[in-house]
């Protein structure tokens, strides 16, 4: 018997006291009705409620975890907003821009494509931004898994004091397009 079968068998016998004696299901087709129902019902969990304007709340929460936010009116203003930010922060290392943003008119010294690890700055689009938590959602590819990111990388592992820039970005800047 494989370890997998042994584990599933033990789970089945622990759970089946109330269900009578039947063979362990091998797939979703012969899973107990309760399991199929639970998966298809998808009960919606309780959501935290808030009365704040969603955008204002999102920006407030982002800034509370050391993200910075610039608001612009149209997507035509994005390139300037990014460039202004890099100049004001004196970030003069290499920049790489996600291919998904290649339509925009980036300065010629900005690179494009996946980061090689030597760049100082990465510019990416995001799938969504979350008002509840102030998180930005990044897609791995179209319709593929995602990372929710809430601010620059941090650690509290030295004497429980927060330090920014443990492994990931030391700064996280959001350009929020508010108009069309």
């Amino acid at each position, binding site marked *: 018997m494989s*370890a*997998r079968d042994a*584990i599933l068998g*033990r*789970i089945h*016998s*622990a*759970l089946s006291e109330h269900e009578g004696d039947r063979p362990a299901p091998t797939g979703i087709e012969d899973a107990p009705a309760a399991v199929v129902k*639970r*998966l298809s019902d*998808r*009960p*919606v*969990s*309780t959501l*935290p409620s808030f009365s704040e304007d969603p955008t204002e709340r999102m920006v407030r*929460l982002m800034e509370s*975890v050391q993200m910075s936010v610039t608001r612009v009116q149209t997507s035509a203003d994005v390139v300037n907003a990014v460039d202004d930010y890099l100049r004001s922060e004196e970030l003069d290392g290499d920049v790489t821009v996600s*291919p998904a943003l290649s339509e925009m008119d980036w300065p010629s010294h900005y690179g494009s*494509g*996946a980061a090689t*690890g030597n760049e100082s700055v990465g510019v990416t689009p995001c799938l969504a931004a*979350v008002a*509840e*938590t*102030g*998180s930005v959602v990044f897609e*791995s*590819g*179209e319709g*593929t*898994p*995602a*990372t*929710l*990111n*809430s*601010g*620059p*990388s*941090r*650690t*509290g*592992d*030295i*004497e*429980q*004091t927060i*330090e920014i*820039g*443990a*492994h*990931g*970005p030391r700064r996280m800047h959001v350009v929020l397009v508010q108009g069309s």
Partner: protein
Amino acid sequence: MVGEEAELNRRLEEIGIAPIETDLGEYIIQLAKEPPSHIIAPAVHKTKEQISTLFHEHHQQYGLTEKITDRAALVTEARTVLREKFRNADVGITGANFLVAESGQHVLVTNEGNGDLSSNLPRVHIVIVGIEKVVPTLEDASLLLRLLARSATGQHFSNYTSVMGGPKRDGDLDGPDEFHVVLVDNKRTELLDGDLKEMLRCFRCGACINHCPVYGSVGGHAYGWVYPGPMGSVITPVMVGLENAKQLPEACTLNGRCAEVCPMSIPLPSLLRKHRTTAFERQLPSLRSRMALSLWAKVATRPALYRRLSDASVKILSMLSAKRGYVATLPLLGAWTKSRNLPSSEATSSFVSQYHAIKRTGDSQ
């Protein structure tokens, strides 16, 4: 922490593989060759000076010459050394906070971002995870993620919350070529079949540990195994055998704070009581302590006798401590008085007797 359960690092080293911990706290204790003292903050027992010494000792091979004393500089030093490890590693091993049944994806949460680097940079990604982490849908995981961040660190949401599923696909810019999941039982099905099954709800936030007065007094290493605090005192006896960890359920004041703060409503004190009952039934405590308990039960169920005996013992203690102000030795309690003195008692009768005396005075006024 499931890696620690399996002593993964030691076993990898035995077969000539050099595992590197990537969470800063885990990295620090790996350098110190110590076990974690907290599940969320594994190096919480280390001071900045100790970490400075550790880095100075172990990072000379990477060109570190001066001792670093600044906290931010210590973080940068670890970041720089570990970044190269990430780039050169063949295999990344991570845990998972949740496994999603409906999609076959897993969810991984970190604040440092080490989970994402371990998952995406090496050619192979292996997830090692306990079977209790399976939830039905992503919706369920999102509810639990809200609870996890708040209970673990007081954040709205952890810094990095990644939903991943399998190797790099066509069109993906990053990701591993190979992806494996190792589902670990290690007594979890035994928990499911017994009377401690509520413990399977634990998602390792550490809230019970943070609020436990016993943990606060003795620290994580005193628990002797991977998991400290109330959750450890329930899990460890199951995983290593109650006979090897019988002191853990005893080392609890049953104050109930852990159950109060547990976001998963695990009745930790009740589970610890169950361990105590089992230990007593299996006659794990010494004959002397079992006899003492039986005697105690006889006295404690007879209020009048109990009161007379406690009055008498207060008087005796008061007499014994009159000369020195403390009691240094007591018959049958040598284990206790070996390392500490019993403070003197200014009272000459028990609480109940004093209470009745005050009440009588009060009534007559």
